[in-house]
């Protein structure tokens, strides 16, 4: 559990495979490396590919980037049994004290894996436009309740036929107004927005004003338009009429 705001802010980065989590971390390191002392933990399905990518990107000293093996269970390693990650974070914090921010990248898993508050103080959930414009609407714990939702690779939108503003509007609806940033690493304005969000969070963490929240466990399925949906046998929800309804 988060013990003291004097230690680093631990920020999780979750989201499906291929949405650009590693690249986002590289962007964060470039944007924040001058003013914050950073460390990075990666969780790959096959170990250290992401760590090697980040080291080769040259955005941070290689020894500040560490890979954690997850025993083929990336969702377990950030949720049910965070031990390996927690020890790696503590080691990094000790070896490079004082760190301001540790970024923990989840192994790209699926739409439902989120970090436990036992491991992180806050988390980003990352989607990308290439995954389809309707993904944000489908919801799920990470999309709905992560501290920040990133709609990544907006520069690709014209090539994949996705309306970014509609996707972001869907995301804001799914999140009941919680923050969403449409990001492209080639768009300095969007990177500045992300940078400002993280710096504000670091400030709140330091002043003790930030309370970690749990986005919620993996859901077997999600319903887009009815948050109070009753899962009992007697529900009167018109399943046949609801074409937007998604069983994932």
């Amino acid at each position, binding site marked *: 559990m988060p013990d003291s705001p004097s230690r680093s802010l631990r920020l999780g980065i979750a989201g499906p495979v291929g949405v650009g989590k590693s690249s986002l971390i590289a962007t964060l390191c470039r944007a924040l490396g001058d003013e914050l002392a950073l460390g990075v933990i990666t969780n790959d399905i096959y170990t250290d*590919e992401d760590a090697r990518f980040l080291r080769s990107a040259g955005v941070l000293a290689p020894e500040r980037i560490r890979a954690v093996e997850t025993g083929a269970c990336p969702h*377990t390693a950030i949720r049910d049994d965070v031990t*390996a990650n927690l020890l790696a974070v503590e080691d990094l914090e000790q070896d490079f004290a004082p760190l301001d921010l540790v970024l923990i990248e989840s192994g790209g898993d699926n739409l439902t894996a989120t970090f436990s508050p036992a491991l992180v103080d806050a988390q980003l959930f990352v989607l990308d436009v290439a995954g389809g414009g309707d993904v944000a609407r489908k919801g799920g714990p990470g999309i709905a309740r992560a501290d920040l939702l990133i709609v990544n690779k907006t520069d690709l939108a014209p090539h994949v036929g996705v309306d970014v503003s509609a996707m972001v509007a869907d995301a804001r609806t799914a999140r009941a107004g919680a923050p969403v940033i449409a990001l492209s690493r080639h768009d300095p304005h969007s990177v500045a927005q992300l940078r400002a969000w993280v710096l504000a969070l670091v400030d709140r963490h330091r002043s003790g004003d930030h309370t970690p929240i749990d986005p919620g466990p993996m859901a077997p399925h999600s319903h887009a338009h009815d948050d109070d949906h009753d899962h009992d046998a007697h529900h009167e929800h018109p399943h046949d009429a609801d074409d937007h309804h998604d069983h994932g």
Partner: protein
Amino acid sequence: MAPPTDTLVDPATVALLLADGRLPTGGHVSSAGLEPALRGGMPAESIREWMIGRATTVSLTEAGTAVVAAHLARRSPGQNTTAAGLDAVTAAWAARTPSPVQRRLSRQLGRGYVRLATAVWAAAVGDTMNPRGPQPPRSVVLGVIAAAAGIEAASLVRLVVYEEAQAAASAALKLEPQDPLLVAGFVLDACAAAEPHVAAVAACRRPEEIPAASTPQSEGWTQAHSLLTERLFRA
């Protein structure tokens, strides 16, 4: 976090908790040496024999380490005299565990168990472990927990053997999928193979009595595995 003091948990129940792969102490990152063996070229058809081999060698070294640690912790719970004794157990274990990769993994798993012990058996474990001493492996921490929970030596030996076999079995289903029920049988075969050794290992009292059962082929595989860029398990 401490259990209510007026409730006694049977030691057998604590042993079940410790043997449960779902216990959140970081065990899921270990294949107990199986991934290194398979990546080193051992055929999948040999998994059962390999598990039996491990249960009658390395697992007994781990078990003996836990037994001696438990004996020391039982004699002087929570006292500083124990810390020096446990450091000697850790040294004896390290001398019998030639692979640096294996030692690092066991110490990492030991840290996971220290977290558990601190949360659940804080009063009994107290300052038994020397924070400035050598990092204890899982088997030493397990011994301290066993002493606090009242788990007797023979049960502790069986617990260690079972836990290692089950870790390999779980990993086998991810690495070389086959009938999971068949693999469950391998776990029992491994435990059965260790059974004739249980009494002798449970009788260990001093660090020098811990069985020294090195497996050079597996240790070589473990070292080589740590250099691969693609692997699912720590070792």
